[in-house]
């Protein structure tokens, strides 16, 4: 297994912010110099607009962008034509909620989500349901913080058009049984959409094996730059869908009255693309693959296990986690009698960065009867010492508030 303390040296943020204990990786991850260097190198040596110029530089920029697409495709075991670049995963999910309607048979009018969706996989479908007069249904979260699969079997039926769910909860860390949900969707003739924002950075994700119709991925949560989101879609579906945005780069011919659109994936990539960012993402994938996705997952588990054990030793801590076997790299908790913002504020004084609040999951917080939770989320550069510092800082919170 790789040495996380050594790995920190690859991440300039830790040099520039001495003593930083960064535990907000579910929000965004830090960037290694390999990624930063690759985007900078692209800008210095290959920058041009893609698919436009008949000159070497533009050809090279295009090649870089398309190589990045191949890299992403290999990473999730897809074909490059099935990989669409977006700004971020929110845009990926909005792309789907804006373009899928035409592919849905008339007798279907329900969308099934889970109670643990991030707002980015909830609000687009609320709007979709309102616009098209569809019903929204929610697979419940049980008291052990896992999904109620019996309920899922009940809810997903011949009326279901779309089953959209998060692979790993950004609050609870729960790893959902994606294969089961995809197969339930398939047997009901519904489209399956996997929000892989919290899974793709932490474990091997294989779209072929999963057999999902669509997947959304966030590049900046896996060491990549911001501005590099992904939609994976089966080609047969992408082909039938209308474009999401209109403009340059997504047409095959244009008259003043009409336009014909090009094939996927470019059909969904109107306007100048984020090439430096896609290059950065490709390099992030190289970095992750060098470490090994299984190793990364084991590392996550080790840290999560350690954090849960240590937190459990503290008095007055409530943990929101389904247990180490079912979770990945995220530990949410509350300190009795102390608001999450106050916890985060005092942790910040100790140079420990965690997130406190509703984590873009307001309905889930309401369900648990809390206004928010504190969340520590780990990644490749985190160490047991980081967890120890978190616990030391939490003790300080207790001292301040215990007086």
């Amino acid at each position: 297994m790789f040495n996380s303390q050594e790995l920190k040296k690859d991440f300039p943020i830790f040099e520039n912010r001495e003593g930083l204990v960064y535990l907000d990786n579910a929000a965004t991850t830090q960037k290694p110099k390999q990624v930063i260097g690759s985007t900078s190198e692209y800008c210095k040596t290959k920058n041009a607009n893609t698919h436009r110029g008949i000159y070497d530089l533009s050809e090279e920029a295009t090649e870089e962008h398309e190589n990045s697409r191949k890299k992403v495709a290999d990473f999730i075991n897809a074909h490059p034509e099935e990989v669409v670049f977006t700004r971020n995963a929110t845009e990926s999910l909005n792309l789907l909620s804006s373009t899928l309607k035409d592919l849905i048979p008339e007798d279907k009018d329900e969308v099934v989500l889970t109670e643990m969706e991030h707002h980015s996989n909830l609000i687009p479908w609320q709007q979709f349901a309102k616009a098209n007069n569809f019903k929204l249904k929610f697979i419940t979260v049980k008291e052990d913080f896992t999904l109620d699969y019996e309920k899922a079997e009940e809810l997903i039926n011949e009326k279901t058009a779309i089953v959209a769910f998060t692979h790993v909860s950004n609050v609870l860390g729960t790893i959902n049984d994606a294969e089961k949900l995809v197969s339930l969707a398939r047997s009901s003739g519904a489209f399956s959409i996997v929000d892989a924002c919290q899974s793709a950075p932490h474990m091997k994700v294989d779209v072929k094996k999963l057999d999902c119709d669509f997947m959304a991925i966030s590049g900046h949560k896996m060491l990549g730059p911001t501005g590099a989101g992904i939609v994976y879609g089966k080609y047969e579906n992408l082909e039938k869908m209308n474009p999401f945005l209109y403009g340059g780069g997504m047409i095959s011919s244009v008259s003043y009255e009409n336009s014909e659109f090009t094939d996927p994936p470019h059909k969904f990539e109107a306007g100048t693309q984020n090439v430096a960012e896609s290059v950065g993402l490709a390099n992030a994938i190289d970095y992750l693959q060098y470490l090994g996705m299984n190793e990364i997952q084991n590392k996550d588990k080790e840290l999560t296990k350690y954090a849960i054990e240590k937190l459990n030793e503290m008095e007055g801590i409530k943990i929101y986690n389904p247990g180490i076997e079912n979770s990945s790299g995220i530990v949410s908790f509350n300190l009795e009698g102390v608001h999450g913002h106050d916890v985060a504020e005092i942790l910040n004084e100790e140079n420990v960065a965690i997130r406190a609040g509703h984590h873009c999951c307001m309905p889930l917080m309401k369900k648990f009867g809390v206004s928010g939770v504190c969340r520590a989320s780990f990644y490749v550069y985190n160490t047991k010492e980081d967890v120890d510092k978190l616990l030391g800082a939490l003790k300080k919170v207790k001292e301040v508030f215990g007086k």
Partner: protein
Amino acid sequence: MSSEMYKQQILELYREPENKGHLNNHTHENFRNNPLCGDEIKMEILTKDNKIEDIKFSGEGCAISTATASLITDKVKGLSIEETKSLTKEDILDLLGIEVSETRLKCALLPLETIKGAFENA
């Protein structure tokens, strides 16, 4: 900014705030939340002859917003609606007597905004 934010006075007001609860004869009420952190606050206000006779707050908040709610509800008792409306961010910071970071300023200002909002709705 440091643990100085959590001075004894702030912590005491957080644990045992003044004016927490409900009125049964209030003339104005308002609810606000801070979508960033999920803080929620409700103000119930009794006015007579354009003056605030009594005020109670309820809801869930952090130490900063709860302590501020306690302080501001004390402060506005006896003030006219106009006087209350003219209170500013500086007045709140004076009451708190601590440095507040930009993010936490929202927590500190929520109670006053909620009170002012009650009179806008009326």
